[in-house]
């Protein structure tokens, strides 16, 4: 079968459509004749951007009055499907809200969600999705065995975002049968200087091998010298050295910078999944057996406390 119609779950932050939404639209256009989006909010906020990336219609719930989107958006999509307005495939980004919505919807429709995908293809009568496992060393391809609509979650940066130059998408209001009871009462934005972790050209990350929280400072300094974003392994985020927003990995951010520098990071599966798509990888670790060296283009077996200060000095004196 071919896919006639794909819906992409659109997400936006402060009125700007999320990069993952535009990435998913790019792939959706490749697979289906009709690409539309569902949006938990005021459709007018996203109509232009998603239209420029090939979506012809926005099914919008309208303002969610502070509710977390999981319940209301899933109930709205389920209502459309039950009333006969259904896509063949719903593509959702692996984001905080995306996972909630896909999971809630899977229960409402009694359909599985296939998660952590980096690709999707039509193979004869099947829709086949690809998910990396074991730190991305193996790729598992799965097909849906029950009827649609199929629900699949995709990891950020799986597809390029490309504009089609299309006009604004038409906005259609959809009913929200269940408004949800979990309410956002306040939002906090953590200000950070420098480039965003998932958009930076260069990322410098530190791990447990840095020793302690204070010694992480050299990572921040190096990042500044390289106009890079500082990152971290899960181990030191869990240990409270740096905020969660620094985390690169399976949980946390997927990054694909031009250069990724991993210092004192052993390279647990959890971490490799989030950074092995980087174009160039430099690793510094005292253990020559550390798995991080298996993905490194340049590996320095040595003490981060000796290598990094010298590197910083060399960069600063340029």
């Amino acid at each position, binding site marked *: 079968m071919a896919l006639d119609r794909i819906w992409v779950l659109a997400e936006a932050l402060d009125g700007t459509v999320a990069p993952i939404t535009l990435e998913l639209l790019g792939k959706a256009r490749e697979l289906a004749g009709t690409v539309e989006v569902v949006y938990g909010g005021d459709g007018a906020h996203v109509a232009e951007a998603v239209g420029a990336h090939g979506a012809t219609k926005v099914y919008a719930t309208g303002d969610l009055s502070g509710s977390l989107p999981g319940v209301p958006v899933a109930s709205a999509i389920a209502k459309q499907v039950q009333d006969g307005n259904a896509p063949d495939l719903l593509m959702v980004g692996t984001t905080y809200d995306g996972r909630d919505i896909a999971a809630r919807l899977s*229960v409402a429709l009694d359909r599985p969600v296939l998660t952590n995908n980096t690709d999707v293809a039509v193979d004869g009568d099947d829709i086949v999705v690809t998910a990396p496992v074991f730190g991305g060393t193996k790729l598992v391809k799965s097909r849906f065995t029950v009827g649609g609509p199929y629900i699949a979650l995709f990891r950020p940066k799986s597809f390029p975002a490309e504009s089609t130059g299309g006009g604004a998408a038409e906005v259609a209001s959809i009913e929200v049968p269940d408004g*949800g009871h979990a309410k956002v009462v306040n939002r*906090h934005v953590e200000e950070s200087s420098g480039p965003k972790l998932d958009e930076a050209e260069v990322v410098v990350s530190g791990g447990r091998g840095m020793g302690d929280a204070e010694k992480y400072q050299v990572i921040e300094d190096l990042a500044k010298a390289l106009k890079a974003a500082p990152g971290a392994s*899960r181990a030191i985020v869990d240990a409270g050295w740096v905020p969660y927003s620094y985390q690169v990995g399976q*949980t946390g951010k997927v990054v694909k910078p031009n250069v990724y520098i991993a210092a004192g990071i052993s390279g647990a599966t959890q971490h490799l999944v989030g950074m092995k798509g980087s174009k*160039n990888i430099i690793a510094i670790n005292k253990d020559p057996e550390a798995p991080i060296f298996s993905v490194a*283009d340049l590996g320095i*077996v040595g003490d981060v406390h000796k290598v990094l200060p010298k590197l910083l000095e060399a960069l600063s004196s340029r």
Partner: protein
Amino acid sequence: MSAMNVVVCVKQIPDPAEPGKLEADNTLDRSGKLILDESDSYGVEMALQLVDKAGGGDVTLVSMAPDNEVGGLRTALAMGAAKAILVSDDALSGAGALDTAKVLAAAIKRAEPDLVLAATESSDGYTGTVPEQVAALLGLPSVTFAKEVELADGTVKVQRQTEAGYDEVESPLPALVSVTAGVVEPRYPSFKGIMAAKSKPVDQLKLADLGIDAGSVGSAGAGQEIVAVEEAPAREAGEIIEDDGEGFARIVAYLENLKVI
């Protein structure tokens, strides 16, 4: 504040320090000893602290695992959980996230909790959908990605991780909350705790005990099928050198070559 009964969903997984293996049917090899998923130790700790603050109530663990595995449950019981419900059934082999959620939801219902806690995702399957699916099946409100949890007057107040920072979210109880790692410092089981855990009750259930049709879950009901497992394209082997004091210069040269500096 009145007594709080908290259920914590815990997963017992193959030791992540060991290389993972696949079975002939391409499902994860779960034979051998299973341990408490470290991600779940945060939920267990959080539950113990919340019950303590409430001045009463119990922490009940709910888990689904093959072969009546209790190794990981004993660890969480040793931390201080009062009891556990374990669902183990051969028909669950190959179960997907939605099936798992159906089983956990049916078991959780028995404990009549005020609050259900879970990790945001497991360390082996990491679908990250099970907690929200459990909430949906139980008809509970939910808050995922909690980095701080507080209870007050029938309400749960959560700091929820977001792309930009965090949101303060409130939900009426009962509710389900998924907690991020690092949210609390999990305690190490004491010797006394380990000894006490050996005699704590573990209610071992089959699908039939929960009224779930074996044909509707597991490989039979997953609605998905693995068609192939392929080797990912490997990265070209890089150059690995021993630092002789000049390792930094190699990095500088590498960055210069890329015109990054």
